[in-house]
């Protein structure tokens, strides 16, 4: 299916609920990286409570607190717009609470809530036996070495979540990468998922500001080959500073 001929539409889903960690920045980064290439972009702010449109090219879900996360999941499940858009070729980037929401189920307020079933993951407060105390909140800098097949450089970000996530047996996709520093999904030593054009991760920061190659990967999925774009130089300096500060190779 050929998507919009000229303007790439970037849907920022419920930023009032899923915007706790600056994840709205991902929309800014995607839009600028298109415009800096002379291409057209439009950020579609999908206000909390309103129906999710089906005609966007990239869907962004960010981090949020417990009650807003449930509210957001309930709102998005009112229609199947994102699933239909994905089957038509759209891409999804879901971060933190959003990452948990795109899976099968996630915990909040002592209950398990249904997710969007876009990817085969599930999140719980802990996967350890009930008698073991749940692990602490995962808070801090996180560094992920992406799956080599993606052709991406090291991913830098910040994580802040209580839940632990795992892929369900027989689920599609692969982990986004292996955790070099930080917690990520939890026990398995990996973070995130990439399944078709759906990407989930615990990295905020926002993740696309610190990792422009991931932004360009998403854009290339929905736009096709992109004209080259250097930098910006500020990003090169930031990645170098993070590399030094976090003492990873």
């Amino acid at each position, binding site marked *: 299916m050929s998507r919009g001929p000229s303007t790439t539409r970037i849907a920022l889903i419920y930023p*009032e609920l899923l915007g706790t960690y600056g994840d709205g920045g991902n929309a800014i980064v995607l839009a600028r990286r298109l415009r800096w290439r002379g291409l057209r972009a439009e950020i579609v702010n999908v206000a909390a409570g309103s129906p999710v449109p089906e005609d966007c090219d990239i869907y962004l879900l960010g981090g949020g607190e417990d009650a807003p996360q449930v509210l957001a999941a309930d709102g998005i499940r009112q229609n199947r717009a994102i699933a239909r858009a994905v089957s038509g070729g759209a891409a999804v980037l879901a971060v933190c609470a959003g990452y948990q929401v795109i899976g099968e189920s996630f915990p909040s307020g002592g209950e398990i809530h249904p997710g969007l079933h876009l990817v085969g993951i599930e999140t719980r407060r802990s996967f350890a036996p009930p008698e073991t105390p749940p692990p602490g909140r995962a*808070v801090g*800098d996180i560094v992920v070495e992406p799956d080599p097949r993606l052709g991406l450089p090291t991913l830098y970000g*910040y994580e*802040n979540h209580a839940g632990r996530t795992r892929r369900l047996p027989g689920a599609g996709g692969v982990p986004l990468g292996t955790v070099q520093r930080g917690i990520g999904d939890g026990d398995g030593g990996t973070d995130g998922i990439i399944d078709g054009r759906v990407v989930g991760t615990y990295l905020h*920061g926002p993740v696309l*500001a610190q990792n422009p190659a991931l932004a360009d990967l998403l854009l290339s999925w929905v736009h096709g080959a992109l004209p080259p774009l250097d930098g910006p130089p500020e990003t090169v*300096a930031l990645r170098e500073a993070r590399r030094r500060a976090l003492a990873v190779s």
Partner: protein
Amino acid sequence: MRTDPGVAFAAHCPRGTVESAMTTSFPRRFTTRTQAALAVERLAAEASRRLGRGSGEMIGGKLALRVAPGMLAEVGSQRRSACVSATNGKTTTTRLLARALGTLGPVASNSGGANMAAGVLAALSKPPFDAVAALEVDEIWLPKVAREITPQVVLLLNISRDQLDRSNETRRIAAMWRELGGELPDTTVVANVDDPLVAWAAAGWHRQVWVSAGQNWTADAMVCPQCARLLHRNDNGWWSECGLARPEPIVAVTGPRELRWYGRTIEAHLDLPGRVNLGNAAMAAAAAREFGVEVDAALAAMTGLGDVQGRYQEVVLGERGRRGRLLLAKNPAGWVEMMELLADAPPRPVVIDFNSQTADGRDPSWIWDVPFERLGGRQVLVTGERKEDMSVRLAYAEVPHSVHASAEDAALAANEKVVDVVANYTAFRDLLVRCSR
């Protein structure tokens, strides 16, 4: 922000404040234990001032609390007092309130920014022991302090995200405050109706004075604190389907220099800049009224306060006579306030000094929630330990800028001799220490 015990603002001595107007000691009998603790507090405070460690208030207060744990109630509960709490603006509002109450007599106040139990205790441990108290109290510490000293008035200004690396606690703070009200039947709460979290917290108290002090940051109050449904908003306020809604204020900020005050319109001319400080002054004046201070006297006393612990103060930056006006912005709500304040003044170059130490919050992601696009058209210079993060944010906001090793270097590179410096917590503190050497 919780003031880290090790990082109390040390450098700036407030000029001509009312809290230095001491009279003779009130002849009261404290327990022997409390008397000993008071002596310990004074010694330790003196020692730490001499060593240049903190303001002295904090260390002394800490030791004293260890010697006599019941001391806070003893020095605090038998006098008239007001506690001020908020994410942003509590230091300034406390200073404004201390000025207004100073029209009645001596005032005890923790003007040094030490705002947990120890800092409050230090402020109350100096004679005269019957002085009325204007106390800044950390959000989390408010219930503990208020239960001990049973203040006559509590001022609640706002609650917003502060340090992102802490688990998000805005609603938890509001719930704690709401519960506290039930335990203080004789306390009046002066609360900002424009912040839904504050209004919900204050609705649980026995008596309220509702003030419209404004809220220019709504992103942390999208969900109803009572029922978790989305809040509705329009120009007249906010409401929820559960019935929670913005209370009708009796005092309101209605213009850049105008208040509606118990049914009449009055003018207010402050030396502190910005609408946000007029909101702080309205809260402080409404609280002072509960102590019997007329609004005209309160506002007159507030005029003349030009800086608060270095904030809004102009300092010399480096060797070459460059000058900078210091502005503190420690979270997104604070940055939006500073943005409005900058827009009111001549468009000077802006130096952004940005760190991410523990006291700042380790996670700098929140800068993406700040509309830095509004700085377009100004010369912008960036420094601080996380200057690269700020630089990327500005690049994507398409705000041309340069990056420098220090605020002094940045000021030197500016096109004008006077700059505005917007710094977050530790950056501000370090700058203030360097400037006062």
